[in-house]
């Protein structure tokens, strides 16, 4: 073989190597990043419509990810969890603007409460129309489902685990913003087994303990 032939073979091998790395490492990463980016467009839209929720999505996602880590979620499950954290409330955009923005929730009539309670279903129906998001439909539909059962949703272990994690994350983030962390903790721990999945509540307890330990460390340091 002459030099030219060796050069061509070497170039072909190098190109192959580069292609494989690009296709197996860089492109999938890019696909996933782009995907999560577009999901934040949805959460941005909901937050703009209902300014009371500003940055709530970020808090919920951060907490959900920590719970997911605590529960040893696989990569794929984690991806679904983060995605749904961003678009779980897209059903809210079908709610009347005034209901959420101008009236406190304790003032709602029964009919209004029922309208609100339908938002996971509306969101699920919307996702059903988008092929690549269809596998998230069930999670969105159940993200407010009680562990011991509620209308139109499965109960107990039949609720997708992502939805059980999100329920805890959302309720904790929301209550601690409105009424402080202590009341939020009480609410979640009191609801263990009835409203919330026990395994997830235990995970939350571990997460809170470790973050408190870190806080004390900070203070000491």
């Amino acid at each position, binding site marked *: 073989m002459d030099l030219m032939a060796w050069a061509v073979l070497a170039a072909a091998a190098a190109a192959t190597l580069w292609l494989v790395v690009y296709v197996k490492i860089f492109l999938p990463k890019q696909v996933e990043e782009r995907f999560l980016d577009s999901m934040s467009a949805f959460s941005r839209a909901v937050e703009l419509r209902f300014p009371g929720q500003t940055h709530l999505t970020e808090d919920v996602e951060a907490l959900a990810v920590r719970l997911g880590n605590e529960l040893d979620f696989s990569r794929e499950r984690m991806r679904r969890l983060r995605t749904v954290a961003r678009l779980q409330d897209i059903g809210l955009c079908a709610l009347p603007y*005034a209901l959420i923005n101008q009236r406190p929730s304790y003032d709602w009539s029964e009919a209004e409460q029922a309208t609100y309670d339908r938002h996971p279903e509306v969101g699920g129906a919307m996702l059903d129309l988008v092929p690549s998001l269809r596998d998230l439909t069930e999670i969105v539909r159940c993200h407010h489902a009680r562990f011991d059962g509620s209308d139109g949703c499965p109960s107990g272990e039949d609720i997708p685990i992502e939805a059980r994690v999100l329920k805890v994350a959302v309720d904790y983030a929301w209550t601690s913003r409105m009424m402080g962390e202590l009341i939020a903790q009480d609410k979640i721990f009191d609801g263990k087994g009835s409203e919330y999945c026990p395994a997830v509540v235990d995970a939350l307890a571990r997460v809170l303990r470790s973050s408190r330990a870190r806080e004390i460390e900070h203070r000491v340091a």
Partner: protein
Amino acid sequence: MHRTRTIHKAQVLLLQLGAAAVVLTAYVVTFVHFPLSPGPLWVILPALAFLAEFLPVEVSRRGLRITFTLPYVAGMALVAGPVGAIATEVFATLTAGALRSRKRNVEPAFLGINVAVAAIAASAGVFAMNAVRGFSTRLEPQALAFTLAYAALNFLLVAYVEWTVSGRSISDNAVRALEIGVRSFLVYALLVSAVAILVKQGLSWSIPFTLVPVWAIRTGLKQKAVLHEQYYETITALTLMLQRAHPYTQGHLERVAYSAEEVARKLGLSSARSRLVREAAVLHDVGKIAVDEKILDKPGKLTAEEMDHVRKHAEWGAEILSPVARFAPLVPWILKHHERPDGHGYPKGLVLNEIPIESRIIAVVDAFDAMTDSQDGKPGRAYRDPMTVDEALAELDRCAGTQFDESVVKAFREVVKGS
């Protein structure tokens, strides 16, 4: 309706291309002699060509051809002569294509077109290779000549097929095909040379390794397609949200998108840019997700406070789209789609030259559709009765130069009048 028309076009194409393929193949079989003795490569290369075509990775959506067999067909041309090359190409495209299309429900006419294109491209490669043989007995230049002719013909024919089927301007499809073509051509040229060298050295056992880069190209193309799909699905989902918040926008968005693209073409924007204008037109009111629907639908005049609230939608739209990288070019257009050439628009009060042409297009098209929208008897925009097309065009003319850009209004009139 649309589907039957497409199938009809595909059948006509199949006749044309099939006839050309048969003539060329007959010519090659009769006149191009190339005596070579059979060897194991006569089996290995066709098998690889088949595998390259059959790898379980989906790429093209309509079933149009992106070639993967090229390195092996070129190798066949070197070791088994032109007839072997064409036979390999037809065999691989036909069998792999038929097996795959059964799963995917692809129109049989497209399979036929792909086979015909493959045969024509392979014949072109054979002619080029023969021409080079006159000057050089080395295998690499012959293989490269084959690749070049094959790729050029394949590219031209695919662009031609796309043009006939989709009815879009030929430059459009050519640009798209060229993007895919040039990049993969470099890799293919390398691969073909590598196969030629391995053949010459008698290293046939190592040729199957060349399937690795072919597989990688396929996987990469598939992921690019996923990115593309995600982009369009994000647009769909955002539109769904908007329609949930404000049911009246249905239909409006589709009409506005269609006319905006046509006007952009008429004004001489490139077709890639026109398509972006279309997407921007679909999303231009996405900020209204955050607007109180009571105020939007309120009959009669709005208070100053309500007006401010509604006017925020331009900024909100930009804010919603800003996290998505691929929407970056659309964000400023959507932010400025309520600016007016005379500087009385919002949110910034920019004047003519500061407003992107894309925003000016959306402003005109949107206003026209709002004026003529009848909502099929459902409660529409609450503040006025729909106008006729001529009344609305007259209104646009009246406001040209102040509220709307004159050149855009002129182009829009031509689009509406269908000239």
